[in-house]
């Protein structure tokens, strides 16, 4: 029974919201139960943003993830500090090691260190670091199929942004590869 509860967190500009939305979208494409819940309000002015994504086989109760995240994807240090505690035992934490030098403290969860910004820069687009992380997450969790994410990308990058699809797909692949 799939019941993935993912926290995506980072700075405002790091695309954590759209990373979460893409995952949600892909889940929907597969006819799974999904929900996406952003933080909002002045906490965002502080510069950090985060969202809760649930992808499940059966009906979702609350869209809030309390301390039972199956995975936290943290793009910056404050997010690591804030959300490490919310991962359920045996859960995963994916850490953007390009920006976070610190290591995860807990030993009842598995930490993955992914140099997302560096990989993104290698791809020539610093803004796809989020997709690198997402690719890694999908590889590890198998929450959705990679094809579903591709479909989701088609939807999200319709029209004038279509040229961005390729690099995003690439980033997903590189992220997956990194943790494979």
């Amino acid at each position, binding site marked *: 029974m799939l019941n993935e509860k993912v926290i995506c967190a980072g700075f405002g500009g790091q695309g954590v919201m759209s990373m979460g939305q893409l995952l949600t979208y892909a889940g929907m494409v597969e006819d799974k139960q999904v929900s996406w819940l952003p933080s909002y*309000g002045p906490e965002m002015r502080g510069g950090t943003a985060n969202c809760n994504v649930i992808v499940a086989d059966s009906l979702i109760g609350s869209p809030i993830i309390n301390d039972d995240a199956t995975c936290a994807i943290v793009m910056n240090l404050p997010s690591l500090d804030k959300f490490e505690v919310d991962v359920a035992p045996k859960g995963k934490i994916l850490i953007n090691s390009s920006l976070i030098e610190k290591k995860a403290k807990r030993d009842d969860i598995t930490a993955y260190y992914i140099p997302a910004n560096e990989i993104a820069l290698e791809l020539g687009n610093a803004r796809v670091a989020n997709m690198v992380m997402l690719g890694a997450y999908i590889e590890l969790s198998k929450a959705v199929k990679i094809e579903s994410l591709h479909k989701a990308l088609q939807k999200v990058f319709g029209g004038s942004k279509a040229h961005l699809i390729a690099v995003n797909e690439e980033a997903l692949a590189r992220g997956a590869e990194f943790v494979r």
Partner: protein
Amino acid sequence: MAKVLMKGNEAIGAAAIQAGCKYFFGYPITPQNELPEYMSKELPKNDGVFVQAESEVAAINMVYGAAGCGVRVMTSSSSPGIALKQEGITYIAGAELPCVIVNIVRGGPGLGGIQPAQSDYFQSTRGGGNGDYKLLVLAPANLQEMVDMVQEAFDMADYYRNPVMVVGDGMIGQMMEPIEFRTPVKRELPSKEGWATTGTKGNRKPHIINSLFLDPQGLEDHNIRLQKKYKTMKENEARYEAYNMENAEIVLAAYGTTSRICKNAIDKLKEEGINIGLIRPQTLWPFPEKAFQEIPETVKAALTVEMSEGQMIDDVRLALNGKIPTEFYGRSGGMIPTPDAIIDKIKEMLGGLK
């Protein structure tokens, strides 16, 4: 229709437009801003009009004006903004005009905060305006239900010539879930021709939209007529969802997003072999009293869970009328109950019952 993924606030707007809403008058306030923003963009494309009013007071009065012309019209706000609309709302109810009002509730009192809350239950169901009026109050728990309800709300409003309020919170407004736009069950809607102000065209008596009755007997008659209508609503419109009621030892009462957290708690407890039920009012007014009056014998106590300091619990107690004890668990100010805290409370109650 295929499912789409939308933010709650935008989905409300989309549902309203689907339902034939052509006019929206509103004023910005967090956490419902995406709704007026969506309407400002989409209504003109759909032959409609969006006006950002100078205030909530003006907005609700614009609604009053447009509703009197017989068109489908909507407004939305959040808690303090709804407080400002109370006079307008009682006028609309008094003049028996159909419209839809959305409240994306935030923590109070006063300016309070902007995180999710349910502390406007009284404001919605008891009315902060003057006089004996009632709104139909719908409380969706997920986005699909919300778009369904928003669509139906317009029909209900027209059917009863009564304002309908849809109550959500920041969670509902901000989250994304897949939704499908479906056509609500059709009601036979009365024609508005007999009362809407569209100009007499010289071939009928003037229509008058009004809530003034200087003669007390006239006003009482009007009230009695309204009460009769409210009674019909009570009989026909009370709705709820019952969850896991079979063999339940305790019944939870919770609405909106809180009910979802309760379900998480119930599911967890089920794994432990503890049976807890949930009655989730989908209409806050009329309150689904019957659901509580008909709880199974196994239920020994009720627990109302709200994001408030305790408001719906009054209605739960009124419905139960002393049948079983009722306790309360709530968080407020934008704090959200956790399944574990609810479970702790339930276990504490179970301990007391034994």
